[in-house]
């Protein structure tokens, strides 16, 4: 099993609902976030294009954050989800330095926190909070190894890219372009 997410930049309107939903679902403290929206503008008026991307931890296949963790707090679970065990984390910040996507943050309680792909919801057979809330339905989640999963289907017929592939982390967030 290999969980992944695809984000349709052609449909995303950058509303931030995925961000608020994550905050309330995962009790993310005010001022912090596990996902965020980037707007990229190119061209000059009136030949302008924008790309809107909902970003979060890429749950990298080759995850430097896990490798650099001195305690093993950062680890990988079933489906390739990269997680942090709060009670093992010393808050050294190494994993934050290691992430090319700046996807991790230091929780005010001391430990490092980030997107979990809502594994607590997956366990119950629910989708992730951000995917389930997105009003444009532009987020697709599922098992890459299952050709019938939403994410596999989304990737099949569309062009996509990943962010900072040159960082060599094999990210698992796919942006449909």
């Amino acid at each position, binding site marked *: 099993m290999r969980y992944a997410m695809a984000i349709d930049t052609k449909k995303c309107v*950058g509303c*931030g609902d995925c*961000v608020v939903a994550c905050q309330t679902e995962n009790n993310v403290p005010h*001022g*912090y*976030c596990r*996902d*965020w*929206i*980037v*707007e*990229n*503008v*190119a061209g*000059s008026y009136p030949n302008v294009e924008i790309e*809107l991307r909902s970003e979060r931890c890429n749950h990298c296949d080759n995850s*430097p954050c896990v*490798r*650099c*963790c*001195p*305690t*093993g*707090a950062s680890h990988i679970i079933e489906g390739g989800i990269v997680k942090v065990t*709060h*009670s*093992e*984390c*010393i*808050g*050294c*910040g*190494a994993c*934050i*330095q*290691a*992430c*090319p*996507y*700046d996807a991790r*943050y*230091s929780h005010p*309680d*001391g*430990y*490092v926190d980030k997107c979990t792909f809502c594994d607590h919801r997956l366990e119950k057979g629910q989708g992730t909070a951000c995917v389930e809330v997105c009003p444009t339905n532009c987020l697709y989640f599922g098992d890459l190894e299952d050709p019938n999963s939403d994410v596999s289907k989304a990737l099949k017929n569309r062009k996509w890219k990943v*962010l*900072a592939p*040159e*960082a*060599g982390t094999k990210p698992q967030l796919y942006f449909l372009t």
Partner: protein
Amino acid sequence: MKEELFVSGRNIPNIDPFLNIWHWQIPLYLYLGGLAAGIMFFAGYFTIMRKEKEMETTVKWAPFLVPIALVLGLIALFLDLKHQLYFWRLYTTIRFESPMSWGAWTLMLVTPLSMVWAASYIKELIPKWDWKFGFLNQAEALAIKHRKQMAWAMMLLAVVLGVYTGILLSAFNARPLWNTSVLGILFLTSGLSTGLAATMWMSKSKYERKVLSRLDLIMIGIELFLIIHMLMGFLAASEVQIEAAQLFLGGEFTVVFWVFVIILGLVFPAVLEILELKGFHVPVWIPALLILIGGLVFRFVMVEAGQITRFLY
């Protein structure tokens, strides 16, 4: 025009708009580690070379600084942890892929070793010293007997420690400025240089100072070479690394880097040392202090600037 922005108003403390998760503690820790490594290395070296007499400060007195520096460094490291109550988790596992982990373990070995080394000379420093307990006297005797072996261990561990201070940063590919293999050797050299400077300052012997000064000049030479090599490397690499190098070549850190690290921290003290070797009278503390400060500033600059550099946004 190109424009990229967070439309969800991301402004996470210490992460946005640029990373600043490591504050003064980490560069200080790296600096003290390097300094300790420098002192230990030469203490070990001259012991093996049987130069205890001529190089008394190097072998006997300067090493008293090592445990102090290491303990201060460890305190700094501890202060930087955000989840301090869980500090002990560092020592429940060894993770070879994590420099943080093997650094912690290296310190676990180095610190006691440096203490034993210093302890073995304490009676020479304070003749009235009394260990109070018999077994301690025995231990001291044992240590004195195995100085040679300890010297080898110290040299080896000093190299590991010195390199570690650089690798701790260079392991992070995600920070383009740190993403260079030069950093390990560069920080080792810089550590050796600061170790020499500290020793030089303490030493009363003209001969010893001359030897140290010569060694230091070599270190400074290597350092300058490595720095240029590093910058050239960046300029020949990817866009993010070119941007990283720009921080020192016109960007935000240009003045601190060139004035405090390169000129005041390396070139000027080198000139002073050459003058001294040529027979001019230069108070030894001036180049020593400049090198010590230069090394410290260098660590701060590398840690701060490195955090600013990123792959995205």
